[in-house]
């Protein structure tokens, strides 16, 4: 039965096209004030983003807190309705779909959340949590449903007998596995991983990263991997998009981004990330950004990064730099890019 809905969505789509294409996506949140609660401004959480995600790849999305990366993830999965722009999934515009159509989309996309403590309903058993997508989409019933839940637990490396336990009995890593099992339950093609490891202990992070990689190859999944930790993103992603204040600053293949960042922000971000090797750390050239991120309610004119950018000139305030191609697979939005 789900076959039909998948087909309905993918009628005109071929695997050569991007699985997800985002164009000029904007998500603004109103800021209300005054006597009548008039809207006096907007948080420009996502403000004109263009991205494409190819089938089977992992697109990493990095940026500091408040840069809009999670909002972007939620807009793409339609947990938020975008203010403007379009999101296409398998070629179809899903920006404003509703009802049954949206439900069908929910079977194609899944999401994994940052906080494994908050993202599992503490009042449900693990089996119910994983079984819920099955129930919602009426994928299975009775014994079949139970079997499926057990299989999913095994898939994420957990003992199937844990189905009747409650989330609080598990460690962070185990909970994240449960969250992943839930995401897999709808048999999605595309998963948005929203900081899936940042709340985990260091020694556990690798387990989850490996699990995600493993699942991707087994089930031909496409990931949008959101994180603030560039080392992790670089490890897991094919390509990386760097966001700053609601805009994409640079997109590049993972290794290319480290070797040759073009955007000054990317550069300083790289330089700020400590490398667990004293030999390298002591020799490293530090490139410390001054000040704090500007307010997303009143983002700076022109280039968003110019207020902290060591290379900024007058021109940067007057015009917003577009994403320009550097070579075949790298884009950066900067008038004065790094070499």
């Amino acid at each position, binding site marked *: 039965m789900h076959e039909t809905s998948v087909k309905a969505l993918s009628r005109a789509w071929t695997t050569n096209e991007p699985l997800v294409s985002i164009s000029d996506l904007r998500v603004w949140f109103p800021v209300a*004030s*005054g*006597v*009548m*609660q008039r809207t006096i401004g907007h948080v420009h959480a996502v403000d004109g983003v263009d991205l494409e995600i190819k089938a089977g790849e992992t697109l990493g999305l990095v940026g500091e807190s408040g840069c809009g990366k999670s909002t972007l993830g939620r807009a793409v999965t339609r947990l938020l309705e975008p203010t403007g722009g379009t999101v296409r999934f398998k070629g179809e515009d899903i920006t404003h779909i509703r009802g049954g159509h949206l439900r069908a989309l929910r079977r194609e996309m899944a999401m994994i959340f940052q906080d494994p403590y908050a993202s599992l309903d503490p009042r449900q058993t693990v089996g119910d949590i994983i079984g819920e997508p099955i129930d919602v989409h009426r994928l299975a019933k009775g014994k079949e449903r139970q079997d499926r839940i057990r299989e999913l637990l095994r898939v994420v490396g957990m003992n199937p007998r844990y189905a009747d336990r409650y989330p609080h009995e598990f460690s962070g890593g185990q909970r994240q596995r449960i969250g992943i099992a839930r995401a897999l339950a709808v048999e999605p093609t595309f998963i948005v991983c929203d900081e899936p490891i940042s709340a985990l202990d260091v020694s556990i992070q690798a387990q989850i990263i490996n699990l995600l990689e493993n699942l991707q190859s087994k089930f031909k999944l496409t990931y949008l991997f959101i994180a603030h930790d560039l080392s992790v993103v670089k490890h897991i992603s094919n390509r990386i998009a760097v966001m700053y204040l609601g805009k994409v600053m640079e997109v590049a293949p993972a290794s290319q981004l480290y070797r040759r960042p073009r955007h000054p922000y990317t550069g300083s971000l790289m330089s700020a990330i400590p490398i667990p090797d004293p030999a390298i750390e002591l020799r490293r050239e530090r490139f410390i950004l001054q000040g704090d991120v500007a307010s997303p309610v009143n983002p700076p004119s022109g280039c968003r990064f110019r207020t902290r950018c060591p290379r900024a000139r007058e021109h940067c305030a007057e015009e917003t730099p577009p994403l320009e191609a550097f070579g075949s697979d790298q884009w950066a939005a900067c008038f004065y890019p790094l070499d």
Partner: protein
Amino acid sequence: MLAKYIARRFLASVIVVLGVTVITLLLMNSTRGSYVPGIDLNPALRPEDIARLRANLGLDRPFYEWYMSWIWAVLHGDFGRSMIDGSPVMSHILDRLPNTLELTGTAIVIGVLISVPLGVIGALRRGSKTDHVLTVVSVAGFAVPQFWMGLMLILIFSVTLQQHGLPWLPSSGAFSAYAGGDILDRILHLILPATVLSFFYLSVWSRFIRSSMLEVLSQDYIRTARAKGMSERRVVYLHGLRNALIPLITLIGLELPGLVSGGLVVEVVFGWPGIGKLAFERALQYDYSTVMGVTFFATLLVIAGNLLADLLYGVLDPRIRYS
């Protein structure tokens, strides 16, 4: 910003006030039957007398008409006259308000003065015998019917003490009937009702302070304060209490409407000439204009109380900004 905030809150309140008065009037109207306030059932009255009085009170009109003219007058600052005694409703309220403020204010002050240290002690000595005793007292205080406690206090501290020739406390009214009214006299009259009322506040607030204090003491900034090397007393009373008291302000602000109904039972038991007693008596007599006036006033108090609590919160907690 603040002025705007108050203005917005005020506008939002208008709907609430109107709604409250409409609900009250509807209820009163639907329960009144053929009862005409202030007349009772006086066989000396002829039907034409009653009709005239009814017309005089405006009760011959449909209630919505009555309401419209009432609200119109209220908007012009005229709360009308009591249907029972013809005195201006405003003067009734203003006559009783000082008494009620005196009683509730004293009870709140006593409540705060006692509950704060008790709550702090309970929090600091959490789990100790003292804490358990305080807990029991406060839970028990919450379980005594107020009117019962009031009557018992009267029997003990007025009647029995007096019978044994001991110094005793007056049992009703806000001051002595004869030659009363000086401060000492008023304080003597205040003791029993304020005790009953503050006992209630005390039970609630001491528990509240205790848990609020416990929460504050577990905060990071308390650890920071300790790490600076300050004494525990300073940590608790300067850094802890200041934060723990903020939510109490809200609670106290929410007591403002208690002026009308919160102290009612105490006012009735002790014959305290306050607004609650007025409201109660007049509601039973279907004194429309007084009831509506008091309702209006009480609703304003509720709103003012909430607003005041919020504003005070803002003063005490710099994190709050009005927008």
